[in-house]
């Protein structure tokens, strides 16, 4: 470890000074000769004091050239007491303020924000709250108990930020009366792939095409050979269903081109009057350009208004078919995806193109899905609609 005080000795026989200092128990960390008459000594603060005393005693030229580390800091603080005081106050304030929550962030998934806010208010969670003795786990448990409709609450402290993550309760499963008789019907058109009957009797077989509303599982069972009683049908019917989307686009577009025929008319115009100078008949299909040429100078708003009629003709131009197909297929698929029920799984998709009246092309996108289409009339077990 290098000493924090650097001394410069000027003169001959530094060896004697070092020996004297050594004899008095001074530990010198470094002695380096810069020139035959100048030596740098590096020692501790107390060692430097002893060496300076020796130098004064023996009339030697020794001076402090550099002070580093703690002695320098102490000297600086002694010189600048106000700065030290304000630094201490600042550090104290910083420590005090850093123990508080200056940002309360709430991340709520599902559930009601109002109940969580009410719980936070009742537990005293607010901006500026003291976090020095915060028990995050206990607070999360209390918040969950107060809110009532949350399945998870997590509280974590991140510096001066208090993060509260909450998840709402899952919806309870549908309640149905197992004694009340009911049928399961198709919620959509489709082709049946698989039937699982938990209660009741299957009314369709795999491979059957069913229409929306058709009974899939009848809510009945045989009590005896002759008596049949109604039950609450339970089960699932997985079927292939299809959703479609369409998009139409013309294959040609109209382009207007000038024929080269131009007619010009002009009029002298001013504030409140128009005096025609030349006239021209407009074309059946034309483009007009108007220009104004001032003739009265800056202070007299009089000028010649000139209107140029340019004759146009219409030409039909074929469009890039591949680009059109790409565009309308994307549109059609987008429309079809919007119709996809959330509980379904896509298993295939395709796009057909056909020419329709008016020189237009139509894309029809079909997405094949697989889903459970069994639903009760009172929608107790239905997943869709």
């Amino acid at each position, binding site marked *: 470890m290098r000493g924090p005080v650097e001394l410069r000795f000027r003169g001959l026989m530094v060896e004697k000074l070092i020996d004297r200092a050594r004899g008095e128990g001074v530990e010198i960390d470094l*002695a380096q000769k810069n020139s*035959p008459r100048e030596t740098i000594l590096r020692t501790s603060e107390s060692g430097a004091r002893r060496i300076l005393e020796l130098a004064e005693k023996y009339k030697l030229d020794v001076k402090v050239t550099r002070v580093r580390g703690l002695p320098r800091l102490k000297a600086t603080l002694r010189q600048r007491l106000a700065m030290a005081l304000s630094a201490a106050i600042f550090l104290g304030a910083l420590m005090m303020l850093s123990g508080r929550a200056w940002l309360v962030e709430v991340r709520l998934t599902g559930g009601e924000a109002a109940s969580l806010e009410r719980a936070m208010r009742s537990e005293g969670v607010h901006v500026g709250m003291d976090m020095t003795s915060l028990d995050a786990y206990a607070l999360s448990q209390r918040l969950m108990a107060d809110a009532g409709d949350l399945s998870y609450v997590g509280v974590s402290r991140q510096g001066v930020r208090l993060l509260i993550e909450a998840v709402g309760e899952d919806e309870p499963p549908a309640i149905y009366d197992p004694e009340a008789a009911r049928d399961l019907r198709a919620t959509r058109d489709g082709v049946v792939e698989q039937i699982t009957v938990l209660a009741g009797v299957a009314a369709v077989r795999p491979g059957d095409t069913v229409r929306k509303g058709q009974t899939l599982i009848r809510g009945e069972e045989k009590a005896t050979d002759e008596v049949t009683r109604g039950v609450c049908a339970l089960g699932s019917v997985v079927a292939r269903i299809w959703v479609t989307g369409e998009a139409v686009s013309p294959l040609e577009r109209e382009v207007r081109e000038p024929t080269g025929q131009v007619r010009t008319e002009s009029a002298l115009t001013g504030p409140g009057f128009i005096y025609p100078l030349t006239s021209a008949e407009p074309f059946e299909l034309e483009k007009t350009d108007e220009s104004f040429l001032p003739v009265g100078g800056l202070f007299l708003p009089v000028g010649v208004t000139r209107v140029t009629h340019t004759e146009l003709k219409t030409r039909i131009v074929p469009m890039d078919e591949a680009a059109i197909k790409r565009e309308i297929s994307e549109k059609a698929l987008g429309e079809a995806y919007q119709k996809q029920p959330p509980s379904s799984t896509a298993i295939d998709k395709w796009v057909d193109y056909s020419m329709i009246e008016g020189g237009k092309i139509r894309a029809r996108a079909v997405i094949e899905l697989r889903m459970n289409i069994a639903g009760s009339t009172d929608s107790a077990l239905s997943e869709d609609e």
Partner: protein
Amino acid sequence: MRMAARKVPGRARHVAFPAMEWLEEAAGALPRLMLAGGRRAMIENHTGILEFTPSCVRLMTRQGVLAIHGTALLLTQIRPDALTVRGEIQSIELPPSDKEAVP
């Protein structure tokens, strides 16, 4: 021990009492030098600095003068009975072994 050294010559003392050498070393009467890679030499049990220049450091020991020659020499960790010489050490002159100890 100093009294014994005055009464009996060094060579005779070592011949007569081989264990004395170990005792002297343990008592700190013999200089000890540890050299590390030609860049650093630590000397213990010296009695004073006779000369200190960037090319030569001469130290007094109880057995005589120990000289270290080299370039850019400087002294570090100067303690009451030990110091370290750092720099490009080229040669070390040890005091003659049969020389009488110098107080």
